[in-house]
């Protein structure tokens, strides 16, 4: 099956790129074609996963390359689902971009097909757990960029930092709305990731929560966004600055959870550090 992978990669990326432009046209039919192309691109990857599954006679979940194909597939799928929910076109672009990244990594680094997965990682929970986290991180990362923009722009209200991208004057309220939407989606997916992780841990390690450093930090970063959501609920119309700051801090905590954990003194006790 892997010999067809280059065709799959090119076809899917081509369709995604075409779709990314078509969805911005005025004409409704063209927009719909664009959406259809996004679905087809995702379906092609889905078909490849299915083909792998049949030819290998096992779920293709044993190498990192195999799991990456799943990520690409689910990125496409989540993109469509989130678009259906919120009707925000750029979310399709964002998910297509992430799917493309996963396809390209697999395409340019085929040697990673050699990477073997240890038995504990071979689980039906692996892909959903990782996929929802990747998506959550992507949303929350984007939200932090918006927050940083809000902070910088808020400090210099007279100067339009992004004037080259759009000609409108800075609007704090709109910036907060964009950020909030990203955070809501990101937070829901972060919750899915945390709970899927707990359910998987019960099957693999015997207990759903063991205060493993990665778990602990996942909980901390989850609390960070939880705090922001409560803050926002209480102070809807107050100055946006504090909100931006909370979001940036929450993302710093998320970064510690993502890779900082490996450098903490507690790393040695973690089941989440995979070497070799």
């Amino acid at each position, binding site marked *: 099956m892997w010999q067809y992978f280059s065709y799959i990669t090119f076809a899917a990326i081509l369709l995604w790129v075409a779709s990314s432009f078509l969805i911005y046209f005025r004409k409704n039919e063209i927009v719909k074609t664009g959406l259809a192309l996004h679905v087809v691109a995702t379906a092609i990857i889905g078909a490849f996963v299915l083909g792998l599954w049949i030819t290998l006679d096992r779920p293709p979940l044993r190498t990192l390359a195999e799991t990456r194909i799943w990520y690409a597939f689910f990125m496409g799928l989540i993109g469509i689902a989130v678009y259906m929910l919120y009707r925000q076109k750029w979310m399709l672009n964002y998910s297509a971009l992430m799917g493309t990244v996963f396809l390209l990594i697999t395409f340019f680094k085929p040697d990673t097909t050699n990477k073997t997965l240890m*038995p504990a990682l071979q689980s039906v929970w692996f892909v959903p757990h990782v996929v929802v986290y990747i998506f959550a991180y992507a949303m929350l990362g984007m939200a932090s960029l918006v927050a940083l923009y809000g902070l910088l722009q808020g400090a210099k209200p007279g100067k339009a930092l992004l004037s080259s991208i759009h000609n409108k004057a800075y609007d704090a309220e709109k910036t907060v709305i964009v950020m909030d939407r990203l955070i809501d989606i990101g937070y*829901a997916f972060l919750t899915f990731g945390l709970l899927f992780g707990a359910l998987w841990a019960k099957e693999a390690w015997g*207990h759903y929560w063991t205060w493993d450093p990665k778990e602990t930090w996942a909980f901390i970063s989850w*609390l960070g966004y939880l*705090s922001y959501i409560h803050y926002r609920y209480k102070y809807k119309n107050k100055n946006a600055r504090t909100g931006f700051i909370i979001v940036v801090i929450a993302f710093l905590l998320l970064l510690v959870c993502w890779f900082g954990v490996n450098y*903490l*003194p*507690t790393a040695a006790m973690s089941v989440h550090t995979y070497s070799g």
Partner: protein
Amino acid sequence: MNFNIQLQKKEHYKYSITIIVGLLLTGFVLQYSLGAISKEWFSFPNNIWLGLGFIFLFTSLYLLFKQREFFNLVSSVPFALVSSISLGILTIGLGSINIETKTGNANPFWVRMGLENMTTSWYFALVFLMVLINLWVAVLKRALVFQQKNITFLLNHFGLWLTLFAGVLGQGDLTRLTMTLKENQPEWRATDAEGHVVELPLALELKKFSIDIYANKLYVIDKDGKALPDKKPHAFLLEKENSTQQLLDWKITLHRYLSNAVPETDTSFLASPMWGATNAAYITVEHVPTKKLTKQWVASGNFQFPPMTVTLDSNHILVMAPPEARRFESEVLVFEKDKEGGRKEIIQVNHPIKAKDWKIYQVSYDEKMGRWSNTSVVELILDPWLPLVYAGIFILLAGSVAFLFKTRN
């Protein structure tokens, strides 16, 4: 008017912070004088009483005094923020501080203060309790004046409350035991973490232990045995015959890979299904700068056969690493006390089995014997509170889905 609301919000913070700081200080004092909270408190039947007591106490207090400012405070957003941020800060400590208790170099004061096991400390418990009270009162407040728009709120807050509540109360009843199984010997004794032997109402008999392996990998190591390059060693996975890969200055071609090999002569191997067989490969090594070719066998070696390596130059050796497990499983017969005969089950990593109220996990095997181990180590886990925790988790999952839909508007 507006000014009054503002003032009250500020007061909420003031009181919330005062309560949490007061409890933290109380917690530090209790921790220092009494030591960690005993697991007994969270074991049957104490945990049932604690749980019922919590629900009864705070529900009736709320119903009696819901007009009072205090209940307004403990169910308020400022209180939620202060208590969850405090919990977050304590958890940061938990996730960053690692006290070396094993080496005995740890400062006794920090050990006494529970820094190596913060989740059983008084201050952690008191802050956690505040989070539980905050969630419970907030849930009551919304549930008693039920409105459809509150469903998302209730799912999220009740789900989280139930997960945390049942998770904490069930801690003491969680039993984890280890059992070592030997082929064809029924075993009903297991040991806990302290090494106490426990007799169980069920027995396991290992019929067969088996390991599937990934093909071995070749590495170039230096004379100290370190795989090269230093940080990210390159490996050649011997999966496809006739494939070629370069490791540092040497180009290696795989001609033949034997997953079951025994020595034929001093320098060659033969495929054989014999017990205790090792892995071997016939390869060509080309030193790229000099084009010098070597053709020979390499073997990983095991408890029975020595490894075979290629000396590349004075500082480099080509070795075959022991195989990595793809899957390992125990085929067992499970006997339960009040049932006739045994039933056959397979225990795999990620696929525990159930027997009575226990879940049984594949953990380990005799690693020295590797594939030929006739010993299997399993873990038996009893967690009577799990259904409640799972109920909480699934309610919280539903809450997150509802949240996604709600935020659409």
